[in-house]
């Protein structure tokens, strides 16, 4: 009993320190120039007064309670290392979502169906998913018509030898600020595909921690958005022999701004890491913008990491080739756009889900 109390004390002290630092120094609502939020233009939608003022002790306790629900071992929580889960790059979204929302847990091992469909725009809480069985589960997360003031967090804890497929449809949102955190234990796999279309102002953060010999695939597709669509990823390889593969593709038009910032962090003991990151944008007009910022931070010496980024427009010579075979330019452009994004759709392994996703994307492709 006494021990628990002591831990609570340590915990709330640490949490206070932690939360205050993040909410103060990393707060993009207060400071527009924070590197990780550089292009997100969050100040445009600034209505969240509580994210601007100093928070009081009861609110900090809520974060503390939320964080303790995120970890199975409270002793770990008390250490600074675990609080600063992401090396000097912890997310403001994570902290503020824990401040403003409660967190519910869903144990995916208890799901009978192979596919679980969840509309998170209907849920006010953060959600914490657990998966430890070896069954293949496809989790389809729908987020649509959201007009959120505060960030919302989705956590995935994937135990040793387990795996999970996630498909995220982020469609027709006015405002949506999502934080995804994936903790992959040894030898686990996560395949994550995020489709984003017809949104006005969105930011998605994808944070992942990779342990021994695990594998994380993250694919993103942005098409036909308006306003600002911002994607940030931070993937940390903490143990040896894990791999991550990230491919983001965006078709940007009608004055929209699409951003991708991504970092791969490799710890000094994470030898034999294999990391790949690529972001490609297709700009269809002169008034739209694509910002790409890939980063590597590597402290181990035996790793394979690569990253790249391209911004291009539709190739006039390719369109001419189509036309020379009788295919009109509207059709040619549509085929070339589909060809550009095909890699992302093909990354969905389940046939039915791939067809399902393809139909949705095709209907959104102009």
């Amino acid at each position: 009993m006494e021990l628990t109390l002591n831990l609570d004390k340590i915990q709330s002290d640490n949490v206070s320190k932690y939360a205050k630092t993040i909410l103060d120094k990393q707060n993009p609502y207060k400071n527009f120039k924070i590197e990780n939020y550089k292009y997100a233009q969050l100040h445009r939608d600034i209505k969240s007064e509580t994210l601007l003022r100093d928070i009081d002790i009861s609110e900090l306790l809520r974060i503390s309670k939320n964080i303790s629900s995120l970890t199975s071992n409270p002793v770990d929580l008390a250490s600074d290392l675990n609080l600063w889960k992401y090396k000097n790059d912890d997310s403001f979204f994570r902290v503020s979502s824990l401040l403003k929302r409660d967190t519910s847990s869903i144990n995916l091992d208890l799901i009978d169906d192979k596919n679980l469909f969840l509309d998170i725009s209907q849920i006010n809480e953060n959600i914490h998913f657990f998966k430890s069985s070896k069954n293949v589960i496809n989790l389809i997360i729908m987020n649509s018509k959201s007009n959120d003031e505060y960030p919302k967090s989705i956590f995935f804890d994937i135990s040793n030898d387990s795996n999970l497929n996630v498909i995220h449809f982020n469609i027709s949102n006015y405002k949506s600020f999502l934080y995804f955190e994936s903790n992959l234990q040894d030898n686990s796999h996560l395949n994550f595909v995020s489709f984003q279309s017809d949104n006005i102002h969105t930011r998605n953060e994808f944070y992942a921690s990779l342990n021994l010999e695990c594998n994380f695939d993250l694919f993103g597709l942005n098409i036909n958005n308006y306003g600002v669509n911002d994607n940030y990823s931070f993937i940390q390889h903490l143990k040896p022999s894990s791999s991550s593969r990230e491919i983001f593709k965006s078709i940007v038009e009608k004055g929209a701004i699409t951003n991708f910032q991504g970092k791969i962090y490799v710890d000094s003991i994470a030898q034999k890491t294999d990391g790949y990151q690529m972001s490609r944008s297709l700009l269809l007009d002169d008034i739209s913008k694509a910002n790409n910022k890939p980063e590597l931070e590597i402290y181990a010496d035996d790793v394979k990491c690569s990253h790249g980024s391209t911004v291009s427009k539709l190739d006039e010579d390719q369109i001419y080739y189509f036309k020379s075979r009788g295919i009109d330019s509207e059709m040619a452009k549509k085929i070339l756009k589909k060809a550009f994004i095909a890699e992302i759709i093909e990354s969905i392994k389940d046939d039915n889900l791939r067809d399902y996703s393809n139909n949705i994307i095709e209907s959104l492709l102009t």
Partner: protein
Amino acid sequence: MLEIKNLHVSIEEKKIIKGLNLSINKGEVHALMGPNGSGKSTLSYVLSGKDKYEIDDGTIEYNEKNLLELDVDERANEGLFLAFQYPMEIPGVQTSFFLKTAINSKRKYLGHSEMDALEFAKLMKSKAEELNINNEMLKRDLNVNYSGGEKKKQEILQMSMLSPKMAILDETDSGLDIDALRIVSEGVNKLRSKENSFLVITHYQRLLNYIKPDFVHIIADGRIVKSGDYSLALELEEKGYEEISKSA
């Protein structure tokens, strides 16, 4: 079929074609030969309608229509086909899908319904076999990682599937080995009929051993300097462009 009169073309203020006249009737095969930079490829691009070429003067009549008023895809759907010297690579677009889209675009233009999948598969299979193109290649992305010879075969496959009225072959022989040259030529010869015409553009007389032209024209500095029958190609092979152009 095709009537080019006094054609003057420039690109970025530079005159390339300077008063070219050429008349091709239904069922005829014409060869156009000339040295590098004489305007051969420019003529083929102008006929297919590629932009950035400025038509300074002259007329081109095709099938009793003013060709210059038609857009690139309209020309194609009216039966004009250009086999490219350097076909474009189209990553992410399967060859068979491209062929199907092209065929159905033409059918739509002509007011016909789409070709059904089985009929299309049969047509593609028979035409591909004639050209010694295997099935695996049709599943690959169009022209991506194709060898030079495979790209040229692919152009001829497109041509035979679209069965154009007027086909222009722009140095289709370049980059082909002897076997591929024979296969490609056979593909062209199969299409020859009283109804359609060809303009075969080449540097070398070799191709014309396989595709016997009715007429041979020599182009130099943007104009046709000499016309004749097949024997002109042989004479050219013997004497070279310089001497022939001088004597013209």
